[in-house]
């Protein structure tokens, strides 16, 4: 492709595509797959960006995905395939006589064949006030940006329209902290996809999440002078709103075609090979009307794209014959599926299954022994199976009695998931988001020797969007490769959950989860209150996500952190007071000696971190020991914590003949700044006053080594089983820079590393480049990280010993129960 000569170029058919969305680009991909050298392709898109997956706007809004994750075709893809992309420059006119399209910027482009993929426009109800600031639709990335801007301020939001899109918008805004009301004209939400029973269950679930749903709500006007302040209903009710999202439906966009005299009714009229009334002009996607139908879902687009690509590549094709569609609601934790016609009545019969305890409702509508439609709520695992039976027109009379229990019961084969995928026909759809069927995945696995889920994602896009089919894809890999397949699944935190550390961290913030019960409920923990593995991790993630707001949960901390001392093998404890930068003085030493005498502490030891350890303290003596140490001005050294422990130093320029900087002073300052901070794991620092590095700073999590002109900052070292020397983060010149980079590095580690992952393995995992980009190269980000660290420190620097020695915190920990004889 890259060696195309100019002569060959002009010999190609000039194809112009209007619309850089899912339908247009899917068609282009299908054409490239079939006839890579036939067309010279130019694409015009209205939005100033590459092609992205519009059905992933909801996860983008809720924060479960970022833009990069929903991009379908990268800028490189356009370049590699020699496609000329004009993004942000929509076509404004088609001149069919001259076979030219004219864009907004005035560019004229000639075509031999033209593909219209102009999609649809969100419907705006023309009530008074619909043009006010703060009224948006939910159709593209710009809309999401507007919604995120409003959500950042909080306050009330109204979503007009309780269909699929409206509810996804409502849940997204609610998870971003807005107070959301949904106004819906019909008697129950999602009435096109759900029957009243499922609609009721869904509305209940939304209410449980704090979203108000008002059905039979007819909007009279949107109120406000410049910016929206509320919505008034026809019955006079007034609902306050700083943001109004209109999600009442979409309308095929056939304007350009109609202006050019192409036949347009509700949509651009096409035949079975997607050709319009002008044989040189094709149309695909939401803008078309095919056999009287317009579609607003993604699956039909993929089917149209295939038929048209066959036609354009001159491959024998039956053409497009219309689509049977199914719907899934993309709201995490709510499983809703519907397909076909479930209105019932007439000659149909229905099978209904309810399980109130599990909140499950299933309704399958049959006609002449075949499935005509299905609605599933709460358990949608068999949705694909019903949908396939429906599309294939299978006679299910034999299965009727157990049909509601799903494939495992009825088909028998699903007992073994590998048999189940093996039994699927080649045209069974595996990935709904990207319209990938089993045949394409199996072919890709075999032809390209794919062995991992990521490779399949890369080559076929299956499971690359919402990920809900990744289990199926894994099963396909296993079924296709047999014994050669090694599932490379993410490791869950523990047996209480299927989530790994990273997704839990992400979801805590995305879903605004602020307590342990909220996390366990929303992320569907399998145990009532977790275990000793996940609870400390969740407690840390919540602390890190909501500093100053989340209240530390002592019962979820390991005993050392709960009682602020290190448990030893005999159940006694050791106590290590903080010695700032490894410095002490006679008063502190006297106090330590007195405490050791008074409480008969058997062992006094100097630690590797330049402090003194008192070993063998009885638990009930701890508060009194701390009180005496506090009285001498000493605080906890956090030697027991997943936290900042010690800052080692050499004697530095203060005393040393070779010292180039004041390392003791710097160590004290760093320790004063960072003490009390919770971390994913223990965190140690050191400061050396010259390159001889007597403080051994290069095996610390953060090491500072003085040079002639300033300081070298090192990160990611540790001793222990796997000794790792630090990497050089950067060189700085001033003391303030040392502190800023130190705080920023710590904050990045606190926000990104997994619980119990020290800086060394974390850096090995994410790469030094990743850390440098965020802490060194990006000054604004460094300052923001540093600021977040310092804000969190405001509430962290309270001596836990003083609280327990003189304020009675957690008194129950240190006083045993006493008994009286029962009468």
């Amino acid at each position, binding site marked *: 492709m890259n060696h195309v000569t100019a002569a060959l170029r002009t010999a190609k058919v000039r194809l112009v595509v209007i619309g850089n969305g899912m339908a247009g680009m899917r068609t282009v991909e299908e054409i490239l797959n079939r006839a890579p050298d036939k067309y010279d392709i130019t694409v015009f898109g209205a939005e100033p960006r590459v092609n992205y997956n519009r059905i992933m706007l909801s996860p983008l809004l809720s924060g479960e995905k970022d833009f990069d994750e929903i991009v379908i075709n990268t800028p490189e893809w356009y370049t590699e395939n020699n496609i000329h992309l004009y993004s942000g420059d929509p076509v404004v006119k088609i001149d069919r006589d001259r076979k030219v399209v004219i864009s907004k910027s005035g560019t004229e482009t000639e075509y031999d064949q033209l593909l219209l993929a102009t999609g649809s426009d969100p419907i705006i109800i023309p009530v008074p006030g619909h043009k006010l600031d703060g009224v948006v639709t939910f159709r593209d990335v710009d809309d999401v940006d507007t919604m995120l801007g409003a959500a950042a301020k909080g306050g009330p939001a109204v979503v007009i329209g309780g269909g699929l899109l409206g509810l996804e918008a409502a849940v997204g805004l609610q998870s971003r902290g807005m107070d959301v009301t949904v106004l819906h004209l019909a008697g129950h939400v999602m009435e096109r996809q759900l029957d009243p029973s499922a609609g009721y269950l869904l509305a209940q679930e939304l209410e449980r999440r704090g979203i108000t749903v008002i059905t039979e709500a007819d909007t009279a006007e949107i109120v406000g002078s410049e910016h929206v302040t509320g919505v008034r209903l026809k019955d006079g009710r007034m609902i306050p709103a700083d943001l109004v999202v209109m999600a009442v439906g979409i309308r095929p966009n056939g304007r350009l075609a109609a202006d050019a005299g192409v036949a347009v009714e509700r949509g651009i009229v096409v035949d079975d090979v997607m050709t319009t009334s002008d044989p040189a002009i094709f149309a695909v996607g939401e803008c078309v009307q095919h056999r009287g139908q317009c579609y607003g879902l993604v699956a039909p687009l993929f089917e149209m794209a295939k038929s048209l690509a066959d036609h354009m590549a001159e491959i024998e094709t039956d053409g497009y014959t219309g689509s049977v569609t199914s719907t899934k609601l993309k709201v995490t934790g709510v499983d809703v599926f519907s397909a076909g016609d479930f209105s019932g009545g007439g000659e149909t019969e229905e099978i209904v299954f309810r399980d109130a305890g599990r909140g499950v409702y299933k309704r399958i509508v049959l006609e002449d022994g075949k499935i005509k439609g299905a609605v599933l709520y709460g358990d949608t695992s068999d949705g694909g199976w019903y949908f396939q039976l429906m599309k294939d027109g299978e006679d299910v009379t034999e299965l009727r009695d157990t049909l509601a229990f799903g494939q495992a019961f009825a088909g028998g084969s699903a007992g073994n998931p590998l048999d189940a995928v093996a039994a699927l026909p080649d045209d069974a759809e595996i990935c709904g988001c990207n319209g990938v069927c089993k045949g394409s995945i199996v072919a890709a696995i075999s032809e390209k020797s794919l062995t991992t889920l990521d490779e399949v994602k890369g080559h076929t896009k299956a499971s690359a969007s919402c990920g809900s089919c990744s289990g199926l894809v894994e099963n396909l890999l296993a079924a296709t490769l047999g014994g050669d397949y090694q599932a490379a699944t993410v490791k869950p935190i523990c047996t209480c959950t299927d989530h790994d550390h990273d997704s839990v961290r992400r979801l805590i913030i995305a879903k605004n989860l602020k307590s342990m019960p909220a996390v366990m409920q929303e992320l569907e923990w399998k145990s009532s*209150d977790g275990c000793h593995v996940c609870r400390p991790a969740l407690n840390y993630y919540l602390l890190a996500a909501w500093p100053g707001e989340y209240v530390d949960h002592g*019962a979820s901390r390991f005993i050392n952190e*709960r009682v602020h001392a290190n448990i030893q093998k005999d159940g006694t404890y050791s106590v290590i007071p903080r010695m700032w930068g490894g410095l002490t003085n006679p008063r502190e030493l006297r106090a330590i000696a007195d405490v050791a005498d008074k409480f008969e502490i058997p062992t006094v030891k100097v630690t590797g971190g330049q402090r003194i350890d008192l070993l063998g303290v009885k638990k009930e003596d701890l508060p009194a020991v701390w009180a005496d140490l506090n009285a001498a001005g000493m605080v906890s050294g956090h030697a027991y914590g997943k936290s900042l422990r010690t800052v080692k130093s050499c004697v530095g320029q203060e005393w040393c003949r070779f010292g180039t900087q004041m390392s003791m002073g710097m160590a004290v300052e760093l320790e004063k700044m960072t003490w009390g901070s919770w971390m994913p794991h223990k965190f140690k620092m050191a400061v050396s006053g010259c390159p001889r590095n007597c403080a051994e700073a290069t095996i610390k999590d953060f090491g500072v080594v003085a040079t002639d002109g300033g300081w070298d900052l090192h990160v990611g070292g540790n001793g222990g089983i796997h000794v790792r020397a630090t990497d050089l983060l950067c060189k700085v010149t001033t003391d303030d820079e040392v502190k800023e980079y130190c705080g920023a590095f710590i904050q990045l580690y606190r926000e990104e590393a997994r619980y119990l992952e020290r800086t060394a393995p974390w850096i090995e995992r994410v790469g030094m480049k990743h850390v440098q980009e965020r802490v060194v190269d990006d000054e604004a980000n460094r300052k923001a990280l540093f600021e977040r660290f310092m804000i969190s420190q405001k509430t962290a620097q309270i001596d836990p010993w003083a609280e327990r020695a003189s304020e009675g915190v957690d008194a129950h920990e240190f006083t045993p129960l006493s008994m009286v004889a029962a009468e």
Partner: protein
Amino acid sequence: MSNNLTWVVVGPAANIPQQGARTLQTETDRIAIFRTLDDQIFALLDRCPHKQGPLAQGIVHGHFVTCPLHNMVFSLETGEAQGPDDGCAAKVECQVIDGIVRVGLTELQAGLRHAG
């Protein structure tokens, strides 16, 4: 065993932290008294069968406790070690009447007979 227990009152269940434990020192043993998230009360000898770890200091989850020394998990209901580990922590009888916790002590624990 339970025929001649001496029942002692150790106070209100509310004095034991939820998902936590308190200890009771008897003549011969220390007893760990646990309160779970669902407000049930259980008692075990405060001595892990593996290396005598103080079970009362462990993390309480469901009806289980994880020993703080080596992370062995024990059922509060039976004292049995969970998963691949073997061993059983000694169960102590206890009951809650009107929110007040009582523990059933053996004669040795209650100091009614001298050990040995």
